[in-house]
């Protein structure tokens, strides 16, 4: 059973529907006991970082989520839910995140090389460049498109980046550190590619992650250094 963290932020209809569509039992809850009992956790989110971080703290969920993540349970943050995995964000002032993955969240237009003629938010379908193997992407090909809606972007994530997208600058599209995963895009709105990502996540358990019996996890080769260069404009996906 997968628990979707309910902390009063965002619309969960599509996420719940997509899990039901792939046959995964899901519960939307803010109850720490139910969260602790779940096989895996999804932290969703739409809106502003500071407000969401405050809601998590006010409801006492920050320490609960940190503890669950530390126990090795598969944990997926989506969109703002991914941004909350990092140390801090600069969205409307400086706010602390859950610090489950090293990194910061900054405005996309603050990245060096940003093309001012492009639009913010980064909204629409953009191809993924897979930068290292990940159990989430076992059924995803390099160049598959996913749906993004965001104005802020994770940086300084080191080798936790598993996928990137090009929007004049390199946007961190997915991250992973041990049992903790994040997608900047919305898998629940990314058609069949998104459903495959959710299905892969729902196949993970604390056991197969910790013992390395997950086939992709076991054979993973970590690449150090910066993500490979992305193709220039004009690419298809």
């Amino acid at each position, binding site marked *: 059973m997968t628990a979707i963290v309910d902390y009063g932020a965002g*619309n969960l*209809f599509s996420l719940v529907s997509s899990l039901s569509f792939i046959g995964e039992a899901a519960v939307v809850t803010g109850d720490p006991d139910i969260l602790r009992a779940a096989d895996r956790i999804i932290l969703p989110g739409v809106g502003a970082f500071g407000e969401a971080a405050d809601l998590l703290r006010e409801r006492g969920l920050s320490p609960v989520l940190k503890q669950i993540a530390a126990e090795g349970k598969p944990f997926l943050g989506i969109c703002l839910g991914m941004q909350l995995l990092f140390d801090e964000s600069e969205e409307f002032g400086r706010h602390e995140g859950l610090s489950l993955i090293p990194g910061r969240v900054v405005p996309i237009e603050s990245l060096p090389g940003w093309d001012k003629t492009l*639009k*913010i938010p980064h909204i*629409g*379908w953009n191809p993924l460049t897979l930068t290292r193997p990940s159990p989430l992407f076992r059924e995803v090909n390099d160049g598959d498109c996913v749906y993004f809606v965001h104005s802020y972007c994770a940086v300084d994530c080191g080798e936790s980046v598993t996928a990137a997208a090009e929007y004049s600058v390199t946007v961190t599209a997915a991250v992973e550190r041990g049992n903790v995963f994040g997608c900047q895009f919305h898998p629940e709105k990314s*058609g069949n590619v*998104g459903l495959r990502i959710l299905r892969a996540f729902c196949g993970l358990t604390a056991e197969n992650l910790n013992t390395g019996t997950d086939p992709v996890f076991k054979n993973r080769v970590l690449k150090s250094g910066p993500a490979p260069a992305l193709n220039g404009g004009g690419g298809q*996906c």
Partner: protein
Amino acid sequence: MITKRIIPCLDVRNGRVVKGVNFKGVADVASPVELAEYYSAAGADELVFYDITASAEGRKLFTDVLRETAERVFIPLTVGGGINTVEDFGRVLKCGADKVSVNSGAIRDPSLIGAAATKYGSQCVVLSADVARVDGEFRVFAKGGREDTGMEAIGWIRRAVENGAGEVVVNSIDTDGVKQGFDLDLLAHVTYYVKVPVIASGGAGSISDFISLFRTLPGVDAGLAASVFHFGEIAIRELKQAMAAAGIPARL
């Protein structure tokens, strides 16, 4: 590289898909849920459901159709029609809509866009503007294109974006249903001034109309059409392949 979006629009009345030509005369096409599944499988990047129901019963049918669609189709869904209050935004967002488009409701109450953007975020507030040329200027029309508001259109669109609209659908009444191509002149004016995504609507008759739209106006993010898709005059998959072949980024 972000791709250009292709968006079929489904006009829904009493739970069924309809399409008017120049907003007059309607013909029953198919179940909205089935049509949405068909389009999603065919490669549509997003869907617009436009509720043209007048009755409360029909409105209930619409939210049922919306919910059923959102349980089976996993691409972004935009909903418009009958959106007059912030509560109307909540009503359709709760049933699976990702974005909500306002037209007459924002003309009647210009504060609606700002209020909805504050509550739900700009990313889900879409301004839909029906525009026609009157006395040498672009005018905004209300009530499904039947009523000239007397307002100059480009200024209206710019104000709506300043107030929080995160996306703009520009529907040209002059080219709608004519199938001779999008209104590139009107769209050039809008994209010059507006820095949020612009969706072109009205006038698509062939694949080449989409190609010339995206080639001529790089500031246009998406092309929307209805009858040419519903009646199979343009197959979405073929359209996407033609876009890719022409060097326009497309999700295949």
